[in-house]
């Protein structure tokens, strides 16, 4: 009862205060125009008339995330990687059980069968979200997070021993995750290395040819738009994020042995 009264008071405060603000002309209302910076970004994200500035990706959010501000995102990926490594370090010394899964473990057989059918479908959908990240909403992180449904649901519905039994171990996930991170790093300096080899000027995190550095990743392969490095970044980020989530869930959810340390 006390909660209902407090809630009514809260909602009334919100409605009344905003009525007062709107009546007195102090209301917050978005403008119809954008800042100039936003207009620059929107104008150059896919623009064949400005070949020195464009990213050649129709998705401007992915373009900003992985090209204009790519260094931010590289460090963000590293932070996420390190957080999971830190979790691993904190959980070290805990004995984890390891036994063969039985029919009894997990939820009912109906849920198990449904999970078996939908697993490949979810993975295909997630891959589609990830690999179309430079064309439609989505990208590596979004696709990877959607793909992480599959291991979570498998751990919960079967058991974490089932995953181990099928060969999804935390060491392999750590390897895959490191491979994803290394792939991102290599993609970011690939054109720089190519420039060193060919003796041409080029930048770190270079995607499309800029003024003064003619090197450029392949962005249009037989009519299919790849947007240069964005495709590769999305692919590696997909691997890194999905394996990272799997790793975190495996570490947290595997039952521990009784003895405390």
């Amino acid at each position, binding site marked *: 009862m006390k909660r209902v009264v407090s809630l009514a008071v809260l909602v009334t405060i919100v409605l009344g205060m905003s009525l007062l603000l709107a009546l007195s002309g102090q209301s917050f209302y978005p403008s119809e125009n954008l800042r100039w910076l936003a207009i620059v970004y929107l104008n150059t994200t896919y623009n064949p008339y400005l070949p020195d500035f464009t990213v050649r990706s129709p998705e401007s959010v992915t373009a900003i995330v992985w090209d204009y501000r790519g260094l931010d995102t590289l460090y963000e990926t590293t932070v996420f990687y390190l957080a999971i490594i830190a979790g691993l370090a904190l959980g070290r010394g805990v004995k984890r059980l390891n036994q063969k899964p039985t029919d009894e473990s997990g939820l009912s057989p*109906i849920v198990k069968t*449904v999970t078996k059918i*939908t697993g490949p479908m979810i993975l295909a*959908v997630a891959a589609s979200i990830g690999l179309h990240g430079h064309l439609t909403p989505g990208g590596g992180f979004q696709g990877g997070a959607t793909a992480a449904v599959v291991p979570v649901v498998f751990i919960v519905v079967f058991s974490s021993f089932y995953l181990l039994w099928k060969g999804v171990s935390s060491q392999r996930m750590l390897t895959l995750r490191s491979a994803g991170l290394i792939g991102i790093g290599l993609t970011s300096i690939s054109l720089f290395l190519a420039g060193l080899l060919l003796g041409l000027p080029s930048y770190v995190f270079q995607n499309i040819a800029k003024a003064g550095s003619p090197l450029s990743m392949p962005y249009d392969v037989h009519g299919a738009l790849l947007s240069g490095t964005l495709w590769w970044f999305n692919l590696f980020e997909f691997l890194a994020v999905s394996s990272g989530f799997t790793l975190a869930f495996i570490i947290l959810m595997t039952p521990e042995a009784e003895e405390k340390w």
Partner: protein
Amino acid sequence: MIEELLVYTGLGLIALGAFAQLVSGIGVNRFRNFYLRLHAATIGSIWGCVYPIAGAGLVALGYKELGPYSTFMAGAAFVTSFLVLILSPAGSHALARAAHKTRQALVEPCVHDALDPSMCVRGGGS
């Protein structure tokens, strides 16, 4: 012609979804027992979710103003509705099983409980 038919069928399914969601919302709030609410929830997830999403896919197939990505929308709508069709009964079943197994909710009113007769509360107001 065929496009208009698709659009009108799809819109009809969307309206059906709105009606089903309303009925389901009323049922979820009127029934006094968890297991009875599950039946109302099924209306909300099949007629209320699967059918209108498939209907939106039909609309996208016939509605030309959506531009070049309308086939993307139709395909994604069909995949979504299929996934919901498969996943929602599994979720309901898992919840019902957990509720019954751990005695979270008694079966009330009840005619007969073949699984665990001690959970059957006879009579009781609806």
